[in-house]
């Protein structure tokens, strides 16, 4: 089957990739609209990078179909490469080259026409805020600068679709914010962004999210939909003294399934928040944890992420491995 979907920036149907007996990506299907920010979440090893590599035309799928920027991922991988930008957490910059030399290098790779080269270079330098560092060796730049330079180099050829694989991993909060401002600017111009991240605050910035686990897509929707519709249990937020000790203790309270630290407080998972809130508060008071707040909340994306993954674990046979 050939798929050349022009309505969607990215579309895949039953995309599958096996390595020997291991199925890294298992019948994944979704669509991404032009100008959308699509967040691809999941634990390490869930199949995120394998999926991205197939979408970028780097790795051939075992089966399934799909198209990216209007080109078939099975038969037109070279065309795809020319029409996408790709940036991974290991920024592919040459540390020994200067900022300008790196940009010139990528201009060559992407065959930017001579008359456009200068304009595109200035655009990257301006966008990355590197005007006073054009001649600096890339090695001395801070993480945030390198990250913006790498993004600039990845989109020199103005691709309509860009893939970002954990672009903000290990980058400080301020640089992360600036990076997301750039992403909004790009999507504002109609560019489609496909991004993976482990930062749940960033997942909130996506228009839609797909959650993959063990190669399968286990949830798909807007952040709102995921928080309000996908989690079966309720979540209570607790502010109290010594939350790290309270975390274990509250798991004894009837109706409580699990508790986790969340910022300075706790998020407690319960079957029914309304029925549990009273018992939980009196337990915390009795045990001297001085609760100042116990109330049902909309779950955070982190709660949803953990809950969906654990539900999946319970549903499947636990991965057996020989002990001993």
């Amino acid at each position, binding site marked *: 089957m050939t798929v050349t979907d022009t309505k969607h920036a990215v579309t895949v149907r039953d995309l599958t990739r096996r390595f020997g007996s291991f199925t890294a990506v298992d019948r994944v299907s979704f669509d991404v609209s032009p100008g959308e920010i699509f967040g691809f979440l999941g*634990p390490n090893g869930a199949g995120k990078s394998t999926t991205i590599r197939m979408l970028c035309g780097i790795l051939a799928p075992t089966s399934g179909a799909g198209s990216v920027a209007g080109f078939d991922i099975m038969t037109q991988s070279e065309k795809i490469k020319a029409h996408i930008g790709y940036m991974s957490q290991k920024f592919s910059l040459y540390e020994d080259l200067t900022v300008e030399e790196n940009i010139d290098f990528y201009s060559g790779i992407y065959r930017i026409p001579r008359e456009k080269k200068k304009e595109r270079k200035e655009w990257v330098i301006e966008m990355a805020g590197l005007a006073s560092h054009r001649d600096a060796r890339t090695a001395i730049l*801070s993480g945030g600068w390198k990250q913006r330079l790498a993004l600039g180099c990845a989109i020199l050829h103005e691709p309509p679709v860009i893939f970002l694989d954990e672009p903000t991993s290990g980058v400080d909060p301020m640089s992360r914010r600036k990076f997301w401002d750039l992403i909004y600017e790009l999507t504002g111009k109609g560019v489609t962004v496909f991004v993976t991240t482990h930062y749940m605050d960033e997942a909130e910035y996506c228009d839609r999210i797909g959650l993959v686990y063990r190669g399968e897509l286990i949830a798909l929707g807007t952040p709102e939909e995921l928080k309000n519709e996908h989690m079966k249990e309720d979540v209570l937020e607790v502010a109290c003294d010594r939350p790290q000790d309270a975390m274990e203790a509250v798991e004894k309270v009837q109706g409580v399934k699990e508790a986790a630290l969340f910022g300075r407080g706790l998020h407690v998972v319960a079957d029914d928040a309304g029925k549990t809130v009273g018992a939980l508060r009196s337990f915390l008071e009795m045990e001297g944890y001085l609760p100042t707040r116990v109330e049902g909340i909309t779950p955070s*994306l982190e709660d949803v992420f953990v809950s969906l993954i*654990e539900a999946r674990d319970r549903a499947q046979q636990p991965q057996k*491995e020989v002990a001993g």
Partner: protein
Amino acid sequence: MMQPAIASENLSKSFGPVAAVDGLTLSVDHGEIFGLVGPDGAGKTTTMRLLTSIMDPDSGQARVCGRDTVSEAEAVKERIGYMSQRFGLYPDLSVMENMEFYADIYGVPRKGRAEKIERLLSFSNLTPFKKRHAGNLSGGMKQKLGLACALIHTPEVLFLDEPTNGVDPASRRDFWRILYQLLKEKVTIFVSTAYLDEAERCNRIGLMHEGRLMALGTPGQVKKLMRGSIVEVRAARPRQAKEILKKSLPDAEVGLFGDRVHVVTDTPENTEAETIRILSKAGVEVSGARLIEPSLEDVFVSVLGKDGGRRE
């Protein structure tokens, strides 16, 4: 009085013209978890290397477990565990073989070694995977194996350099559960992190920037450094709400935090009402605007924003 687990005085280290660590003075008590936060290049990793006796300072001094990090480096190394960002696991050795290897390096006595390894593996939920090659573990499991290896010689102080970088939320939760177990066993933990929600859980934190400590204290104390108050706005379309508020309130700092908009202001009462009015007028549905306690990320941006962040 008992000596602190970690104490440094005016610790400094330069690389060429760059002062990576500049007059660092701090102390960490036994059984405490101390968090070091700061932007990339702030000097966090260099600080770790100085405190773990991997690198000598240019000036100043530090004592870890009561031993001088320069003149008693070997004694320091025996008493600490260190998990660097590139912790050295051998990908083609199994989980068990990696543990054995580190036990040899640290000279863990043969007697009782097997029990110890069993205990650490079970503690880090790695028992079912002991025969798997480290190279075939998921990121979260590698992290836990790195931690188990760093604990093989029962260190008094554990140094963790951004241990949860690139780790998914479920594995991060797991990792922190393990850290709290260690604290109950009275291990002192010195951790650097780029996740400010993790920093909130430390007993005390140091905010580092360009080699210097800009703030030191409990998360509560550090939050007092925040200039202005924060009004949190919940709106139907947060991204759009942020843009509108940014334009309408040129004097306030407006930023997006997940699905909320934070407005930094000196007049919170007015701002609460004003944000609702502005957004309603623009046709953006607002479900609430309220004064909140700043998060560490707000403080981070507020304290470092002046020289670190402004380029727009």
